[in-house]
């Protein structure tokens, strides 16, 4: 039960959505873009989100695209994670998405909602960071395409009124060798203790993490250490020295335990991608 009222708006174009946001804001409202609604509804109940107007972006045609266009995979922000899994255009993304929440929840959770959400795991962003994807963003100044590395720094750095329309990924990345391991505190469903996703490009490992810090990340310093010509365990020990801080230390697992699990997970990832 959402403990406050909001108005519901369903624009059918990007322009209409942007206009709506501005008009509602001018009326003194706190509008919010709405996709799967899973986070907005569950966090509202806990008084961790407040809005008095939601703008549902799912009817905007550009947000529902799932296609290869000009050698790029184009994924609309409003596409559900199960739709992406079933189409399977990018196997690493399929694997990552298929481990978020549970099957039924993923019928609702959208790619854009997972990446733009407050809940800080945002696991679907990992493959996109590894594949140097581009994000298409709409705002009052029009539609812009930017590198995900510019826009996603710990979280999506969107200006008020901006929203994510699409994610574009060069086709050459889609079939690269990959590995993905999600380790949870217990069971097969739920938030990660640590999630590691990796791609191998031109003989070099690219690695991205969720659950290690209170934000997902890919780090050049970590990748440099992991790609050294040294024994695997030395490379991992050195890489762990270069993790961003803070390391998560919460009810899911202490910082020390997460680092222990991460060390073994990295070993498994490297073994999988490099062989014994």
């Amino acid at each position, binding site marked *: *039960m*959402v403990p*406050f*009222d*909001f*108005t*519901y*708006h*369903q624009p059918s174009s990007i322009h209409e959505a942007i206009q709506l946001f501005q008009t509602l804001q001018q009326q003194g409202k706190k509008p919010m873009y709405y996709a*799967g*609604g*899973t986070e907005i*509804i*569950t966090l*509202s*109940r806990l008084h961790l989100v407040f809005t008095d107007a*939601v703008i*549902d972006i799912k009817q905007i045609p550009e947000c529902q695209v799932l296609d290869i266009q000009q050698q790029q995979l184009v994924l609309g922000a409003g596409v559900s994670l199960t739709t992406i899994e079933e189409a399977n255009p990018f196997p690493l993304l399929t694997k990552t998405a*298929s481990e978020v*929440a*549970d*099957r*039924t*929840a993923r*019928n*609702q959770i959208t790619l854009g909602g997972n990446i733009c959400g407050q809940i800080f795991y945002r696991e679907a962003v990992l493959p996109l960071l590894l594949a140097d994807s581009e994000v298409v963003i709409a705002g009052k100044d029009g539609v812009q395409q930017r590198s995900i590395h510019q826009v996603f720094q710990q979280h999506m750095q969107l200006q008020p009124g901006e929203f994510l329309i699409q994610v574009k990924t060069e086709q050459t990345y889609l079939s690269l060798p990959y590995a993905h391991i999600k380790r949870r505190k217990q069971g*097969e*469903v739920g938030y990660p203790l640590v999630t590691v996703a990796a791609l191998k490009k031109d003989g070099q490992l690219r690695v991205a993490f969720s659950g290690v810090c209170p934000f997902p990340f890919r780090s050049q310093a970590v990748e440099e250490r992991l790609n050294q010509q040294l024994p695997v365990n030395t490379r991992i020990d050195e890489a762990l020295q270069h993790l961003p801080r803070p390391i998560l230390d919460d009810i899911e697992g202490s910082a020390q335990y997460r680092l222990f699990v991460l060390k073994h997970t990295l070993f498994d990832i490297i073994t999988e991608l490099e062989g014994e």
Partner: protein
Amino acid sequence: MATTQQCEMLLTVNGEAHSVIARPADTLLFVLRNKLRLTGAKPGCLNGDCGACTVLIDGGPIKSCMMLAIETVGKTITTIEGLKHSPIQQAFVEHFAFQCGYCTPGFIMNAHALTEKYPDASDDVIQEWLESNICRCTSYREIEQAVKSVLLKKHRND
């Protein structure tokens, strides 16, 4: 389309059209239970974790505690009340796939969608789908057997 605090929504539930006055902020679970008196979908965690509130939207399972009723205008909603003598209901009885029964409507809706969509579902697919629901009485084994028996019967009839 913009709406004020209470508005009229036309919902198609179990093949019947219903005009409902509700808040745009009302979840589908709330509207089904409190406005339409369809109490089959159960409130459990209200947090997307347990699956007790599962219903079908256009044939696919969703957790109705995490969806707004207003989002389902123009779609077909099926609740446990709309399933009549379906193979999965029969199989739950035959395999004693419940104890207290609180989770049962949610499991049945999810399993019904699974058996309709994937008549050839592998063990991995069955597990992946059933993991969306929690049974506090731990009837998991019997539920899995019920699902598999429906899939087997579908194959025999092919």
